[in-house]
């Protein structure tokens, strides 16, 4: 089974500051990696995903993430945040082998990003 650790439960930052949300995973097989965002009173939206190829992945709203296989990490970054980025962010993994457990995702516990003016 997979496990995902989001190292910070809460990250407060000021508007226009850079931010990094950390995610580490453990798995005995190759994985796909995802970041989802949840705005208040809404479901989860896909922010970006890593499947293969370039380890730097760009997503929506100016976010990007870097896959580091040796450190089993997939940290999310944004160079300059806005008030509207205030939300909860979830890191998730799934097995990449064909026929694996039907696209099951394993989620971290989430990081609440709060952007202050």
């Amino acid at each position, binding site marked *: 089974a997979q496990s995902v650790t989001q190292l910070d439960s809460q990250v407060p930052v000021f508007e226009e500051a850079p931010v990094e949300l950390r995610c580490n995973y453990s798995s005995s097989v190759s994985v796909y990696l995802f970041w989802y965002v949840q705005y208040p*009173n809404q479901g*989860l939206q896909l922010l970006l995903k890593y499947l293969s190829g370039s380890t730097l992945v760009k997503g929506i709203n100016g976010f990007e993430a870097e896959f580091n296989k040796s450190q089993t990490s997939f940290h999310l970054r944004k160079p300059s945040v806005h008030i509207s980025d205030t939300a909860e962010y979830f890191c998730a993994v799934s097995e990449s082998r064909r026929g694996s457990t039907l696209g099951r995702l394993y989620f971290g516990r989430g990081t609440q990003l709060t952007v202050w003016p």
Partner: protein
Amino acid sequence: DVKVTQSSRYLVKRTGEKVFLECVQDMDHENMFWYRQDPGLGLRLIYFSYDVKMKEKGDIPEGYSVSREKKERFSLILESASTNQTSMYLCASSTRDTSNQPQHFGDGTRLSIL
């Protein structure tokens, strides 16, 4: 556009009641999932289904059951609701056998058991 619809945004029920949470997707997806979300615990998988009438237990199936009679609809059932089942419930769907396809989520049902 992709759409996963959960029948209720907010629901209040009494202890011991049988509770049904409904989820419908319009994307012809084979896989459907039910999660519960609690502060500090993230999303925990309750049940999932990979085809009509098929179901698999997730990590926390106790106290829950599911029904998938049609491809587009996946119901979560609380047989006898208890206060510790007060939570946010999220439904999701995805295509089959492609772990790299993202799950699409509904907006959630916030369930309170009194």
